């Protein structure tokens, strides 16, 4: 008699050997296997925000890792936890990735206490991206509020590296106080080398502030937008989306040409844990980058 249920030991299968390729979403892979990475540099931006430059240690894993502007990774501190962080470095930089992280919780708090040389885990990249290819030949309007500049850095690098393919690039960047401005050390480079029009605005100025004062929407007075030929990328706190996108829709930019990036507290990044569900849409799979038309049709999105 043969009544033993056949044993299928997937631990012996080929997918256990190589590193997972998160860009090939449909293959069976070790979904929880993180790429061991070293924090090679930590740039202190403000009192609560730091830019972590992270290098995947294993050369073949580093080589495999490619992403597009707008995608995110799951960053893991073994024993502490895992958090979704959008990538804010250039997709063409294959040596390290940049993650701009605000100290807000347990994992990010622990990360802020770390020093260069710390070993972390990276899974990803996950999620949708800003469709930079579709924007070729057009103007791009990038609008960031507060920490929203972090995910915008990736498309900004992209635009610079493909500068001839795009027309006028405008960045509008608003924060509450001048001390919260991130990446100001790059502003000159962006203006001079990247050939971008960068406008900044703060709500509560200090005595040294020389630029505009007000809300980010006030900056629309200072620029002219060609709605027929402009794509918009908007990142920031949810309250901002509605005001900006409504304004842009009113001047005639189609909602499918506005892209925003949503945030949720994801636990898996792979459409399994359901923690990031917005209505019936997964922020991790269908997002984080959505066009505004889609967002308008989502319940509770912003």
């Amino acid at each position, binding site marked *: 008699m043969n*009544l033993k249920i056949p044993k299928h030991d*997937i631990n012996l299968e080929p997918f256990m050997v190589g590193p997972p390729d998160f860009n090939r979403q449909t293959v069976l892979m070790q979904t929880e296997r993180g790429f061991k990475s070293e924090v090679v540099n930590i740039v202190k931006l403000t009192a609560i925000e730091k830019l972590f430059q992270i290098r995947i240690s294993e050369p073949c894993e580093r080589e495999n890792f490619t992403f597009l502007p707008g995608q995110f990774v799951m960053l893991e501190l073994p024993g502490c936890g895992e958090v979704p962080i959008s990538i804010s470095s250039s997709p063409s930089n294959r040596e390290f990735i940049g993650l701009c992280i605000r100290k807000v919780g347990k994992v990010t708090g622990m990360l802020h206490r770390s020093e260069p040389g710390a070993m972390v885990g990276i899974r990803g990249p996950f999620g949708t991206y800003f469709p930079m290819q579709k924007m070729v030949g057009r103007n791009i309007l990038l609008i960031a509020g507060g920490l929203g500049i972090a995910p915008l850095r990736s498309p900004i690098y992209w635009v610079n590296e493909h500068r001839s393919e795009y027309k006028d690039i405008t960045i509008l960047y608003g924060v509450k106080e001048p001390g919260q401005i991130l990446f100001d050390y790059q502003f000159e480079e962006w203006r001079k080398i990247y050939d971008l029009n960068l406008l900044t605005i703060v709500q509560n100025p200090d005595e040294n502030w020389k630029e505009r004062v007000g809300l980010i929407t006030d900056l629309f007075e200072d620029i002219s937008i060609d709605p027929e030929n402009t794509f918009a990328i908007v990142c920031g706190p949810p309250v901002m989306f509605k005001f900006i996108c409504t304004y842009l829709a009113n001047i005639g930019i189609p909602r499918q040409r506005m892209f925003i990036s949503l945030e949720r507290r994801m636990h898996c990044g792979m459409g*399994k844990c*359901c923690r990031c569900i917005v*209505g019936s849409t997964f922020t991790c799979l269908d997002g984080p980058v959505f066009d505004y038309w889609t967002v308008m049709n989502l319940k509770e999105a912003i």
Partner: protein
Amino acid sequence: MLFKTITKENFKKMVEGLLEENEVIGPRSRDQDLGGNKIYRFLKINSFEELEMDYTRSYSSPKNYFLPFEEDLATYRLNDKDWEQEIRYTIHPRVIIGMRACDINALLKLDQVMLKSVYPNPYYFARRRNTLIIGLDHEPLEDCFCRSMNTDTVFHGFGLFLTDIGDRYFVAINSDTAYIILNQFDAREVTEEDQERYKTVKKQIESKFKTQVDITILPELMDLEFESEIWKKWGHKCLSCGSCAMVCPTCYCYGIEEDTNLTFTKATKRRFLYSCNLLDFAAVARGHNFRPDAHIRLKYRYYHKFRGFVEAFSQSLCVGCNRCGKACLAGISPKAVIDDLIKTEKK
């Protein structure tokens, strides 16, 4: 599909044979409720006598043999600044006897998420691949509404599926493993008489459904009645305890937790099943909660079941077992909520 019959005597021998070679899970009574009715659970059985083939409904669903309440996803050896991650998938061949059509359909729905969409889940895959399911037909209980959800019959996702036709079981066979096992116990070809008895039993089962839920326009209603007072009416009763999700055969939401041992030499990444009714389900860093109220969370549980999942997989994520209705401490039953929604539409 192949069909055979096996006498109950031979079925007993088959179970005893399976028990000798494998771990066998089946319905067992564990307790009694206030009315003196047995409370069943799917548990490991040690002898055929422990298996209660006449059970009514297990309190919680057998899904936890595929999605355990808690599971270690990875372990880490920590060494000063460095660490090593280790991942091992649990390979544990076992037989589950007595699963209902609705519970097997629930697994098929989970398969959609865990195996057939992006990032197939290897932990689930390992368990699904190493489990032989022997299903069992039953007469519906008062509150079963699986017929309305189209989950009262099942065509795949199992090894064997039994229907009691008197002195023998009418068996649908759906895997080679199961076929080989069955044939070792004098399984017979289906006779005309067997077939007639099978038809009669099936008709009788069909005639016993008492509870119906109208889901025809439910996905649309979920959007149309998004701001309805119905959600507050039921949501204000909700205690946000998460019992519904724990007993549900299709709820799969989870959370991740990591911890270390006291000497910081080992760490574990653990997944635990969660419930979208729990207070902090949609909380993000710094304390903002996208779903701060119980009624909003309750609404989203229904929204995922009857709208979101329909959009993604063209079927709802409910099998009509009413386990959540039974388990709910506040007496919220899915039928009552859905009926209410449909009524408001008609006004």
